[in-house]
């Protein structure tokens, strides 16, 4: 193999691997059910079962007023304590997926995230699943660190 071809192969390898690895995250412990809900909140579990298809794609889950709840990684889950009422959750890559829940106090909801085929990047899909299905599918998922905690860590590291 000539030197030029070899260097091209190395560049191609990095171009393939870097985007794949860029969305990998350090996930926490395996799913544990929340013991207690804070007063006047409902609990929404966002989860994404581990899958080879679109595994390298991660996307932010946001509320209707653009607050980022978490970045949903392959094989991860995140518990979100929501205020009661009609709440919109959405995610976007090259297309937008959105779901609205009627969150009731003390109730638990499961929202499953998947990645579908897209032109340039996988497209997010959010769907509310029945609790019995969600409880089964979430068991192998690992906790996604809270975005606030990650920011705190970065801040401490800089200091």
């Amino acid at each position: 193999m000539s030197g030029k071809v070899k260097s091209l192969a190395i560049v191609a390898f990095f171009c393939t691997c870097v985007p794949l690895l860029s969305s990998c995250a350090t996930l926490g412990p395996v799913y544990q059910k929340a013991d207690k809900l804070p007063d006047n909140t409902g609990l929404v579990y966002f989860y994404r079962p581990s899958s080879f298809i679109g595994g390298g794609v991660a996307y932010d889950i946001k509320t209707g007023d653009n607050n980022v709840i978490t970045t949903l990684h392959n094989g991860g889950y995140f518990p979100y304590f929501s205020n009661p009422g009609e709440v919109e959750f959405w995610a976007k890559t090259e297309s937008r997926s959105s779901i609205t829940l009627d969150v009731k106090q003390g109730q638990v909801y499961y929202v499953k995230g998947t990645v579908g085929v897209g032109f340039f990047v996988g497209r997010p899909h959010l769907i509310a699943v029945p609790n019995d299905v969600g409880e089964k599918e979430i068991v192998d998922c690992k906790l996604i660190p809270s975005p606030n905690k990650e920011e705190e860590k970065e801040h401490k590291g800089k200091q």
Partner: protein
Amino acid sequence: MWWITMIFRNPVLSIILLAFIGVGCGTQKVIVPQVDTTTKANFFISGKIIYEGKQEYLPSTIINDNTNASPIIFKYTYNTIYGKDNTPQVLPLFNPLSLVGFPIGGNTLVVAGNMEVIKKEKVVKSYTATCGFDVTRNLFYEGDTYTELRKEGLLEIKRNIEIQMYLERENLVSLLADE
């Protein structure tokens, strides 16, 4: 890819391609029961309303009577059921026809509403309406999101129940009249 170039150079094949794209996408909506949607529900009746949700989804044919003396109660509830997308994601990934608009997935949503008219702790009348959506996605058409479908569905069942109540207004008024 040679076959894409061939399609775009040939007008007949281009038309077939566009037809595929057009046919393979879309939203199907079914509402049960079917009512004449041109009917204007110029009618309202008052009673105590039991409802948890946004005011815009509540049928406007009922008005809340804040006085506790009202023997009539309207209990309005709705429910949304999300369908499972049964299309395996690996299939469109390796299906070259996905590039010409073959379906790559779908969203299914059913919104059901129920209005119970209660008089003296007894349900005297019940109105139900159901609205179902089936959205087929392809690479060129993602369709409405669940949020948009839910809102449309809730407004459809609201309108449906309003018309049902309007069409039965005389019967309903006589049912609720004081004995």
